[in-house]
Every structure is written in structure tokens, then in C-alpha cells.
């Protein structure tokens, strides 16, 4: 739905109730009612965040995608709180893709960067507070009393002296005609009714009963199922294929060439897949036939002498190295990773002459809408993007490749098309977490003080493809985040970035650059602690004199984990912390290592998080647990294997994810904080890999500098220890 439709929807609703719209302007947010919207003309495109209906229902529109992080609950909580609504009357509805629902900070409707609460807290609070003041005013007029004699109470307005009551529903008509206050009084923290409480999630019932609609659950009458045969190697050509054999499969309607391969469209999913198998495509001329895990490892680690771009240069590293008494150097290597969302990529599209409907599990509504306009030639207002639940996102669903394919196939067949990727397609056609080789050098003086830190990163660029305008002086922030802003107080710091793009495409993967940089920084600082003969926790604290929030998460995680207490023989603890997406997280991992097999067992993880004020502590805890577990999966198991110019890994048989027997119990401690709101979807991930590697060192004396820490990698480290 486009601005005009939103506007119509808005006016339709306000005929019977009260609705508050918010427009982001250059000077801040402007709040509007229906009457004001009508006067403002069509150039003005506010969104409708809340509607109060005569039956007391409060509808909150959520513009962010629900991929597990809880926004379908936490964002309505913010509105409900300022409105002082009765939580049981709250209903959430999913926003259409529309300019009206663009993120006020980004100017684009999308979900990512652990930013949903951070970007939406203020406009949603204002919308709720404005409606509350209007309802109060409406009641005061009705009773002919002063507003200050009235109070709101969970969906009702009460006249304090006489104890008269009116529900919000009874007041909507009167309130809808009032002027919207531009600076409504926001609640004080002590007045919050829902914010800060462990409110159960609104999507739980649907998810537990199997009725939550994911992208893969879309159906359109008369739709065809599509399956695409794709090249096994980057840039390979389709030399021949058996079109007739595919068309001979019962139920197959069409064999359609598409930019990404050869598509088979059929009545049923099994016919489409059988038809694809029958194609027996012959792919030749791989563009990079020699490309393999080994060739890439050689190339990445061969770039340490290549001159890069300085992302940070404090003091004089060279001079400090010349005078240091001890020099330490380490090289780290991290692999490409797949997102492996449990719901494989899919999209259902119906392109008609006069419009288009898209059912997509997407993190990128604005991008999907723009793509549909471009492909169909329709106007934005003719295109409806239905954002479904996302069976995992982690950045993968910011991409639009699967939507593009479904759009093109619906257009070329003239029918609605449901495209479902096989798991193998999903693993082999990802935009991967970049591979990374890092060399860090440091010097220590005679007292064990770190005098210089020189950090060189060899890494592909994500931004160069996705947001080229955000490249700064040739530097991709995703490659250097977490190092370029490293807080350890070292007088001389150099951070150098060598961009190296291979044929393997890269994209945003939960916590992005922090997913590799936390591992290198926090492993290396641990190595320095050993060199300085200091306890890893105390060593870190000593380097963070001016960073109280960082110190605090480390201290709390250590204290709750019993850092100084003895462990069972063979077990050891490791610690790491990282700042990302506005939040501080420290993890302590308790591990043991089977020295005969190299298998790491993580028994327990203790976490401390400072993310500023918390909207829903239960969701914060769940997200930290989630990030930690996904980070541990990457730390111990995940690696995309490359061979013969393409991706060799196929499915969960060879791209293994962490299973229940490997998942530790996780103990999360939220630090009460009045600092700026931080993100929560990603920050739990980065510090777990180094915490585990540091614990492995403590347990065995072996320093593992490569991820994943598979048994064979651990055995190799044990042999050199």
C-alpha cells in the first residue's frame, strides 16, 4: 500500500476512532490527526502508528520485520505504555511497504543493525502520549471539568473527585476532533506500566500452534510452483539442458530462462522439483575454476605486506615498536559463513495488469517495493508488499534476490508464482559473512604496559556492493568496526584495512564486522595478558580506566561466573567483552577440552549486558542467549567450503550448526543502566568466540587462532602448544 492508500486507510479509521500519525521532518517529529492530515495535502506522508477504536481496541502498526527479535511485542509495548492502554486490548498489525513507514533515521523501511527500538522509541512514545492527552482532554470536555482533575488508568479516563469513568473507546470520537499536542508530556521512568516489564510476547500463541504465517506459507489460487537450476560455480555457463525431459514431467507448465539459472514452473512443488532434476543441466566455463578454500586462504594470508588504508592512526606505532621491550604478533583466520535461516529463501508473487502482490519474508520493504516498481513498471501504489513472519533473518533477508526471481517468473508466466529454494540452494547462493585474515602486532614495555597495537585486516567489502555511498575514503566500516573504535587505552594504535574481494559475494550477517573483529581483538588482548603475566580480567580492566561501562560488564560477568573460584579439574574459564550496536556485552565461558579428540565442550556461559534502558527484559535475555548460541555455532562448527570455483557446502550434513548437546546453559545478567538505548539483536554474538578460545587456552595452553574451532583445528593448536 502506498501513501494514498495509507491516507485512505487513515481517514477510514478515523471516521470511527482516534488515530495518531507521525511525520518525521527535518526538525523532528510532527504529530497529526486525520483532520490535520487532510489539510496538509498529499505531499506530506505521515504514518499511522496507533488507532483507538470505539470498542476499546488499540491497533498499533509495526513497521519492522519480526524475525525472532520480538519487535511485534516490544514496539506495541512502547505505544501502550505512553497511551496507558489496557494491554489486553492491544492488537498489532503489520505495516505495508510504504514511504509512510520509512524508518525516521534511515529514510528507508527496513529492519537491521539492532536498531528497531532505538529508532522507533521516540516517535512511538510521542504518538502514544499525544493520544493519551487528547483522550484526557476529551473526557474533561465531556464532564466540563479541568483536565488536571482527570487521570488515565489502563484504557479509561477517570474524574478523580467524582470517580466518573469513560473508556478510551467511548472518547475516541470526541478526541479525534481535537488538535494534536506537538509536545505531549512523556512519562517518567517510574511511571512506566509496561516498559521494563517481562510482558509475554504477542506472537507466542500463533508460533506454538503452528498458525503463524511465514513466507513459505503463502498461497494464491492458481499459482505455479517454481524451482531453479543454478550453476555450481561462479560465472558458469549453461551449455545444454534437457528442456523436453523437464516439460514431459506431469504437471510442468513452463521452462523459463532466468538470470540466475533455468526455472521450471509447475502445478505442484514436487513436479517443479522433479522437472528441475530432469533438466540435467550441463554447466561449463566456471569463471574461477581454481577457486577453493585453500586458494583463498593463501590469497588472504598473502596480503599482509600489501599496503592498505589507515582506518585509525593514534600516536606513532613505529616509534613505539622501536622502543618496546617485548613484541607480540599473531595471525587470525576466519571463514565465510552462511546465514542458514531455518526458513529457506522463498517468495510468492502475483503480478497482474493492474497491480502486484508480494508475500515476502523480508527485512527490506523499501528495497522490495523499489525492485517491484522497476521490474513490473507498475506504480508504487499498485504494489502491495505483505511482510510475513521471517523464519530467521540475520541479514540474509535484507537481500532481494529471491524476490527478484519470483517477480520475474510471475511476470513471464503471467501467473502467480511461489518460489521455494532447496536448502542446498540456500547454502550455496548466500551473501556470506566475509572471510577475514588479521595480523595484530603489539609491543609491551618492561612493566607489561601495552605501548603499541597495530592491526591489519584483510577482508572483502560488504558496503561497496550494498551501500557504496557509505564507503568512507575506501574504508568499509563493516570491515573495521569493533577495532577502529576499540576502547583499550593504548597510546599508539594503527588499524589498516586491505580490501580484498573474491568471487564469493558477501553480505550482512548477524553482528557484521563485530563477528570477526571481536574474535581477533579479544583473543589478542588475552595473549597480551599472558605476555604481561596478568590475569586476563584484571589486564582488561587496567586498559579501560576511562571506559566504566566496559569495565562494568566485565566485572559483572566475572563476578556472576565466579571468575576467581576454582573449577572442576580440566575445566577453565575464558572472558571477552565487546561493544557493538550501542551495547556492551561480556561473556564468560566455562569449557573443557578432550585432548585426545580436540573436542571442546562449553559447559556454561555467563553474560552481562548493558544496553541502556530495557523495554522488555525477557526479550533482552532471549536475544543475548540467541546471539551467544549462534556465535558459538560459528565459533565451533561453521565454515563454508569452496571448491572448483563454487560453494561446496550443501546442507546441514556438511554445513553443521550447533545442536542441543553442544549448547550450554546461558545465564544472562542485565545491568541497570540509564545510558543511551542500545541495540540487542546482535551484540550478544561477538564476544562468545573469543571467550571460548581464551578458555581453551587456559585449559590446555593451546591458542586457537582460526575459526571454527573444529576438533582438527584444536588438535593442531595442541600440537604446537
Amino acid at each position, binding site marked *: 500500500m502506498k501513501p494514498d492508500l495509507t491516507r485512505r486507510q487513515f481517514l477510514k479509521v478515523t471516521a470511527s476512532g482516534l488515530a495518531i500519525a507521525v511525520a518525521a521532518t527535518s526538525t523532528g517529529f510532527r504529530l497529526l490527526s486525520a483532520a490535520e492530515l487532510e489539510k496538509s495535502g498529499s505531499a506530506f506522508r505521515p504514518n499511522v502508528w496507533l488507532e483507538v477504536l470505539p470498542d476499546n481496541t488499540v491497533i498499533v502498526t509495526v513497521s519492522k520485520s*519480526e*524475525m*525472532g*527479535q*520480538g519487535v511485534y511485542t516490544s514496539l506495541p509495548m512502547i505505544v501502550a505504555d505512553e497511551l496507558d492502554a489496557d494491554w489486553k486490548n492491544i492488537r498489532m498489525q503489520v505495516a505495508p511497504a510504504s514511504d509512510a513507514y520509512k524508518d525516521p533515521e534511515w529514510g528507508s523501511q527496513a529492519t537491521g543493525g539492532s536498531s528497531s527500538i532505538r529508532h522507533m522509541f521516540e516517535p512511538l512514545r510521542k504518538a502514544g502520549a499525544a493520544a493519551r492527552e487528547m483522550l484526557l482532554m476529551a473526557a474533561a470536555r465531556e464532564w466540563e471539568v479541568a483536565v488536571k482533575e482527570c487521570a488515565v488508568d489502563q484504557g479509561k479516563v477517570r474524574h478523580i473527585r467524582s470517580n466518573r469513568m469513560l473508556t478510551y473507546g467511548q472518547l475516541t470520537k470526541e478526541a479525534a476532533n481535537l488538535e494534536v499536542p506537538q509536545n505531549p508530556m512523556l512519562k517518567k521512568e517510574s511511571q512506566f506500566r509496561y516498559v521494563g516489564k517481562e510482558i*509475554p*510476547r504477542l*506472537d*507466542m*500463541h*500463533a*508460533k*506454538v*500452534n*503452528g*498458525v*503463524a*504465517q*511465514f513466507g*513459505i*506459507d503463502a*498461497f494464491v489460487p492458481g499459482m505455479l*510452483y517454481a524451482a531453479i537450476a543454478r550453476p555450481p560455480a561462479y560465472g558458469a555457463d549453461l551449455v545444454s539442458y534437457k528442456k523436453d525431459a523437464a516439460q514431459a514431467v506431469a504437471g510442468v507448465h513452463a521452462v523459463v530462462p532466468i538470470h540466475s539459472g533455468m526455472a521450471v514452473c509447475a502445478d*505442484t*512443488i*514436487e513436479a517443479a522439483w522433479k522437472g528441475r532434476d530432469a533438466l540435467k543441466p550441463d554447466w561449463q566455463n566456471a569463471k574461477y575454476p581454481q577457486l577453493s578454500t585453500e586458494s583463498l586462504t593463501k590469497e588472504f594470508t598473502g596480503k599482509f605486506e600489501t599496503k592498505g588504508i589507515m582506518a585509525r592512526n593514534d600516536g606513532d606505532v613505529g616509534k613505539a615498536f622501536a622502543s618496546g621491550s617485548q613484541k607480540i604478533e599473531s595471525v587470525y583466520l576466519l571463514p565465510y559463513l552462511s546465514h*542458514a*535461516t*531455518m*526458513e*529457506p529463501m522463498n517468495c510468492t508473487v502475483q503480478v497482474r495488469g493492474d497491480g502486484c502482490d508480494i508475500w515476502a519474508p523480508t527485512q527490506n520493504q523499501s528495497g522490495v517495493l523499489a525492485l517491484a516498481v522497476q521490474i513490473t513498471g507498475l506504480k508504487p501504489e499498485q504494489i502491495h508488499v505483505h511482510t510475513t*513472519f*521471517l*523464519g*530467521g*533473518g*540475520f541479514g540474509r533477508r535484507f537481500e532481494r534476490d529471491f524476490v527478484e526471481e519470483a517477480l520475474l517468473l510471475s511476470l513471464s508466466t503471467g501467473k502467480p508464482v511461489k518460489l*521455494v529454494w*532447496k*536448502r542446498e540452494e540456500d547454502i550455496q547462493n548466500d551473501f556470506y559473512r566475509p572471510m577475514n585474515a588479521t595480523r595484530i602486532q603489539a609491543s609491551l614495555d618492561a612493566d607489561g604496559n601495552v605501548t603499541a597495537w597495530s592491526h591489519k585486516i584483510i577482508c572483502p567489502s560488504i558496503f561497496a556492493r550494498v551501500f557504496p555511498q557509505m564507503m568512507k575514503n575506501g574504508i568499509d566500516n563493516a570491515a573495521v568496526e569493533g577495532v577502529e573504535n576499540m576502547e583499550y587505552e593504548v597510546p599508539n594504535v594503527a588499524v589498516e584495512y586491505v580490501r580484498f574481494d573474491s568471487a564469493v559475494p558477501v553480505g550482512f550477517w548477524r553482528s557484521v564486522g563485530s563477528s570477526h573483529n571481536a574474535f581477533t581483538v579479544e583473543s589478542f588482548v588475552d595473549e597480551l595478558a599472558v605476555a604481561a603475566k596478568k590475569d586476563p580480567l584484571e589486564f582488561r580492566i587496567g586498559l579501560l580506566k576511562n571506559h566504566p561501562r566496559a569495565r562494568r560488564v566485565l566485572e559483572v560477568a566475572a563476578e556472576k561466573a565466579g571468575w576467581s573460584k576454582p573449577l572442576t579439574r580440566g575445566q577453565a574459564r575464558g572472558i571477552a567483552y565487546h561493544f557493538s550496536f550501542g551495547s556492551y556485552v561480556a561473556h564468560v565461558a566455562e569449557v573443557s577440552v578432550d585432548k585426545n579428540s580436540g573436542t571442546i565442550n562449553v559447559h556454561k556461559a555467563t553474560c552481562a549486558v548493558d544496553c541502556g534502558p530495557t523495554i522488555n527484559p*525477557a526479550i533482552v535475555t*532471549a*536475544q543475548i*542467549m*540467541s*546471539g551467544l*548460541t*549462534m556465535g558459538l555455532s560459528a565459533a565451533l562448527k561453521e565454515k563454508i567450503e569452496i571448491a572448483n570455483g563454487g560453494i561446496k557446502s550443501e*546442507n*546441514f*550434513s556438511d554445513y553443521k*550448526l*550447533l*545442536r*542441543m*548437546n553442544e*549448547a*550450554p*546453559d*546461558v545465564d544472562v545478567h542485565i545491568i541497570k543502566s540509564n545510558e543511551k538505548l542500545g541495540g540487542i539483536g546482535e551484540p550478544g554474538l561477538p564476544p562468545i568466540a573469543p571467550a571460548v578460545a581464551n578458555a581453551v587456552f587456559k585449559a590446555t595452553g593451546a591458542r586457537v587462532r582460526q575459526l571454527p574451532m573444529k576438533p582438527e583445528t584444536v588438535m593442531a593448536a595442541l600440537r604446537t602448544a
Partner: protein
Amino acid sequence: MISLAINGKTYEVDVASDVPLLWVIRERLQLTGTKFGCGIGMCGSCTVHIDGKAERSCQTPVGSAQGKKITTIEGLPENHPVKQAWIKEQVPQCGYCQPGQIMQAASLLAEDPHPSEAKIIQHMNGNLCRCGTYPKIKSAIRLASEGGEK
């Protein structure tokens, strides 16, 4: 025609007998709570009960399910102790794997009402969750097995 008994109802489906039960359940009958995850029986998202046992519907030819009693997530009552425990513990995040997890857990408790920690892990280990809800799944199973006590 294949005749299937799902959640107490009989369905007649015109489908070849080698088609995976998964596709019949979710794409033909639109009982979409049963999910497609990997197609090779390694993630458990497609788990249903066949004659009371947890089975991977992506590995079950529809022909072999004829004459058997099939239960999907939609057929497990809303007041089933496992579903209740899942809500109490607020297990799901993205939620995609959870119908499979719940069906797997329900079959465990039907077979052993008080499973040990080791038994829980052994029984649940074939079900992947990318959101990392494993600790909560374990708590929910303990809750369901002990009638509310963890």
C-alpha cells in the same frame, strides 16, 4: 488416490505415492504448521507424529503413511502440556522450527513422562534451532514433564 488420516480427519489426495508426506501436508492440505527446513531429515522442522512416533515428514513417502494415524502441530491440542510449557517458558523466537520441536518433545514425553537431561538431549538433538532456543526448550520440557515444576 491416497487416503490420509490427519488430526482425526480423512483426506483423499490425488498424488503419487513417492511424494514426501511433507509436501502433501503443507502444500496440498495447507496445514502449514509443518515446516520445510532441509529435505534430508537433518533439521526436524517437518516433524509430525505417525502412529504416535515422531517422524520426519520430508523423509516419509506419502504412500507409506496410508492407513496410519498422522498428527501435525495443528492436531496437538492447545492445552497440551508441551504447548502450555512452551508458552510459559516463552520458547520461540523466529518460531519456524518450533512446531517440529514441539512435536518431537511431545513424543518424548508420551514415551517417558520424566526424561533425564541426557534423554532430553538425545531425543531432541536432531532438531535444529538457528535462534538458539535450546536452553529454553530444555526448560520447557522439564516443566511439561513435571506438571508445572521445573
